[in-house]
């Protein structure tokens, strides 16, 4: 029943055995020990499990591990480089955009996808985009602030 699945994970080629029913989030958490992606619901609503597949945000609870074959998967663990936080991570820290931290990895990965598509989102655009990521702690106020601050920081980094 198990089949081999090979893909690029945080810049490294990896392979693993997975059943046909194994979800990507379970493979990441249980096989690779990448526990940053969390499972917060069973209806693809909460977004705590968001990772990037080929650069696009995906709810990894809603994708089979087998579907990662040949693709590029990035998780929260791969975002900082050489110990230096990504501007979105830095902005979440500076603006107190997290409390319990459970939704945070998915929130950051989702926000980063938004900023790659829309480098200067308005407040309304940020709130609309994050509609698929629930947070019970922050009331979103500081998350929105952090995402917009990250947009400025990423702009400055690029120029």
């Amino acid at each position, binding site marked *: 029943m198990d089949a081999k699945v090979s893909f690029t994970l945080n810049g490294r080629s990896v392979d693993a055995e997975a059943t046909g029913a194994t979800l990507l989030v379970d493979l990441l958490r249980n096989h690779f020990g990448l526990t940053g992606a*969390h499972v917060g619901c069973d209806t693809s609503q*909460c977004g705590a499990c968001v990772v990037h597949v080929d650069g696009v945000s995906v709810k990894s609870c809603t994708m089979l591990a087998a579907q990662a074959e040949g693709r590029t998967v990035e998780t929260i*663990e791969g975002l900082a480089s050489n110990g230096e*936080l990504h501007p979105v991570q830095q902005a*979440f820290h500076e603006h107190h955009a*997290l409390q*319990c931290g459970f939704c945070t990895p998915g929130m950051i990965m989702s926000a980063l996808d938004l900023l790659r598509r829309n480098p200067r989102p308005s407040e309304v655009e940020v709130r609309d985009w994050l509609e698929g990521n*629930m947070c019970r702690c922050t009331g979103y106020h500081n998350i929105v602030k952090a995402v917009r601050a990250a947009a400025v920081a990423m702009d400055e980094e690029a120029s």
Partner: protein
Amino acid sequence: MSGEMGIGVSAPRTEDRRFITGRGRYVDDINLRSQQYAWFVRSPHPHAEVRGVDAADALKMPGVTAVLTGADMQADGVGPLPVAWGITSRDGSPAHEPEFPGLATDRVRYVGNPVAVVVAESRSQARDAAEMVNVDYGELESVASATAALEEGAPQIHEGAPGNLCFDWEWLPAAMAPDARANTDKAFKEAAHVVSLELVNNRLVPNAMEPRASLADFNTATGQLTLYTTSQNPHVNRLLLCTATLKMPEHKVRVVAPDVGGGFGSKIYHYAEELTVCWASRRLGVPVKWTAERSESFLGDAQARDHVTRVELALDAEARFTGLRVDTVANLGGWLSAFGPAIPTVFYAPLLAGVYRTPNIYVTVKGVFTNTTPTDAYRGAGRPEACYAVERAVDEAAVQLNMDPAELRRLNFIQPDEFPYQSPVGQLYDSGDFEGCLDLARKLNAYDEFSERRRQSEVRGKLRGRGMCFYIEACGAAPSQAAGQLGARAGLYEVATVRVHPTGSVQVLTGSHSHGQGHETTFAQIVAERLGIDFGNVEVVHGDTGEIPFGMGTFGSRSLAVGGTALYKAIDKVEEKGRKIAAHLLEAEADDIEFTEGEYRVAGTDRAVSFGDVALAAYVPHNYPLQELEPGLEETAFFDPENFTFPSGCYICEVEVDRQTGQVDLRDFVAADDFGNIINPMVVEGQVHGGLAQGIGQALLEHCLYTPEGQLLSGSYMDYCMPRADDLPNFVVATRCTPTPFNPLGVKGCGEAGAIGAPPAVINAVLDALRPLGVRQIDMPATPQAVWQAIEAARSGG
């Protein structure tokens, strides 16, 4: 050095880094060698006899180790889940406390009631096998609503509770007894105006983003049990495991609550699942892990609110409040959760004075069993219900008397020179400046320009409304003796150890628990400020009974006021011992030594020794007063507060309502809070934001719904409307400060304020918007459907 990150500074949180890089360590992230997985068989019926459990087919499924039942649990002598607070009815009889077994033995009383557990080598194997467990249920009549459960002929849920009445309680605090009722009735007879409202406080599901999880590891060689669990108070869980359920000696049990993804009250309790995995691990000799699915959270986490209340307010001819009568029916669910009977009684009635000088108050509460998930504390826990009743009644009075709601409140405020103020419902309010908060909120709201904003909304075809709330709440639970007199079965102090290492860095062991509140930062700020050491040299350890002496944990906005004060007192002891060491080193009298900014100094001289040098001397006692002092520098303090603390604040909210669709849009939300002194303003603002979101969620979106028989209708995020980013506005938050005199930090607590004050502010605003259409009453949540129906009803009625 401390000034950079001392008290009052918005220090970015030290705990953030692990969370933003995906290195948090939550219970489900922990795996042990040879662990097995539990899956629970839960009742699909709201009320049924359990005639038998046939596990034969399940046991044949691949990977299955065991199927265990309530009978097995009973045979092993496991005790029922404990009730932590006893309530006494007005006739003097104790509340009925049915025995609540971890796994049902003869009867189930709500959908989701655990009946059996399957343990297997993988989670999916356990889940598949659970489907093969054949439970022989004898279905019984059932009822979900508390008012329906009180009706004659309603299905009987517990034999020991005729009419489903768990208790029939009245509140007679010393200040009012025994004439509270007579005096209040007299106030109503003599009143110039009486306002009366029937209110429903809607049932909620807490929904911390991390589902509950427990991993138990019983070591058959040492007899030691280690439990990793999603808890707000691991020492309490250990206490209950050891004294009530598993009955193991405490030194053989270690409970670890590592990173916990939010709690909001729902992770206070010793739940059936946690007990079951501990027992199963002991019985089977392997680690056993259970992680809830969100569907199980909806069925199994203690739910909240669910009151039906009649509130009456009496006013004299000058619009001064002279009496308040409150009669509440509270839905307790199918069994009693740990604090279930306390939340709608002693956490509710004592706050019904609000911020007003109402002299006569009489409160009655019926606690009722129903075929629903047990209810218990959730962010605010009794105070949101109290605040909602009072603040809805006050606004209704303002409408009926054609007064500005702010002015009616101002007229009735307790005045700053009246503190400490003894309320008629038994609380001694510590401090407050209600007019100051009101003025601040009015300024932030641009109160006097509302009519222009309303006009602009009308131009856009929208109805604009403004609502106000002034809340007060009791935090810092609790003075143990007072709590004991009210029925608490535990002490409510807090504990801290300050361990100074030889090189002067500090480890704090706290019995408080952070599941998002940021103690690793704020507690370190207190140490940095007091000892004058660098913030980065302080580590805060929490959530492990193996490391921390004791603690009651985090709930009721108590961490800083009680846990922070325990820390403060432990620092006092460290400072005092250090003073004696410094006196020896400086060859001076201890009384002559001052301690400031990390230095012990002989007063009026330049002779000084640093805190680090004193720490080193304590651990390398070559030049040390060993005859008088032990070596080492580590101190522990238990702090039991003298009183609660009383945060208060004024919230003003503006909404726009679309009269065609009933959609309510929040346009503006202003919060002016008094939390006393503040350690980290950024963290406090974050707490307010989160509380507001939950309060607004209750007012506009969230509703836990059952069929009349008790089938849960809102069992997932597809049905239960959680607040999302696009449902909420930016918040305008500000604080005033009247420090509490009841702890040396002068802090009150900020965690629950938003969830307490937001619901009445929002509903008052919605009603203000709808008033021109003749709508006088709406219950929470004010969904588009509810608003539209209210508009249509007013239209056809008028």
